């Protein structure tokens, strides 16, 4: 039983490490929410830059930050 648990733990650790290394090598940005919209009813919607919608906002905003308004 003890041997089996140790094996499972090791397997989990290896899978986690493989996932982390793959993400690093693919250059995937961390999933931080960097688009925040506040609506006129006071509700908030946040989007991460690695989502399609969030990417649309950040791509346009990046151009404006680069050239200025």
């Amino acid at each position: 039983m003890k041997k089996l648990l140790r094996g499972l733990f090791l397997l989990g650790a290896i899978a986690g490490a493989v996932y982390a290394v793959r993400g690093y090598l693919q250059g995937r940005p961390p999933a931080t929410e960097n688009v925040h919209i506040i609506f006129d009813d006071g509700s908030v919607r946040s989007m991460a830059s690695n989502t399609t919608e969030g990417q649309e906002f950040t791509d346009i905003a990046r151009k404006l930050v680069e050239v200025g308004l």
Partner: protein
Amino acid sequence: MAERSGAGTAQDLDRVLANLRALSDDIESCAVLSGDGDLISSSHEPGAERERVGAILAALVNLAERVARESGKGHISQLRIDTGGGHLLMVRLDGGGVLAATTGQDARVGLVLYDMRNSRGEVEKVLAEGSDE
């Protein structure tokens, strides 16, 4: 620099934006886009670059309004985007226009938005006076 140089509106708008920049030194540039999608005031001189900036800003406003519609909300009130190299901030004005600003990455964004919200009333007042003329 505002485009409608004939009216007092342009100078008044430039003065309001200059006050905003003086109040919040984290602001690198700011602009006012009308509800019709015209760039009324900008740091760019009239020309191709200014038109390009106006078109990009209008596209961003349309995108945000589309998200509001799809979310079943009325309109956006405020937008904050962290691009990794700086922030783009936007506050909606009465009539569908926006007051927008860019800052550096380390800017105190909350404080800048606070100053923008405080200036919003003055910008709206100037625009309303301009449309009355």
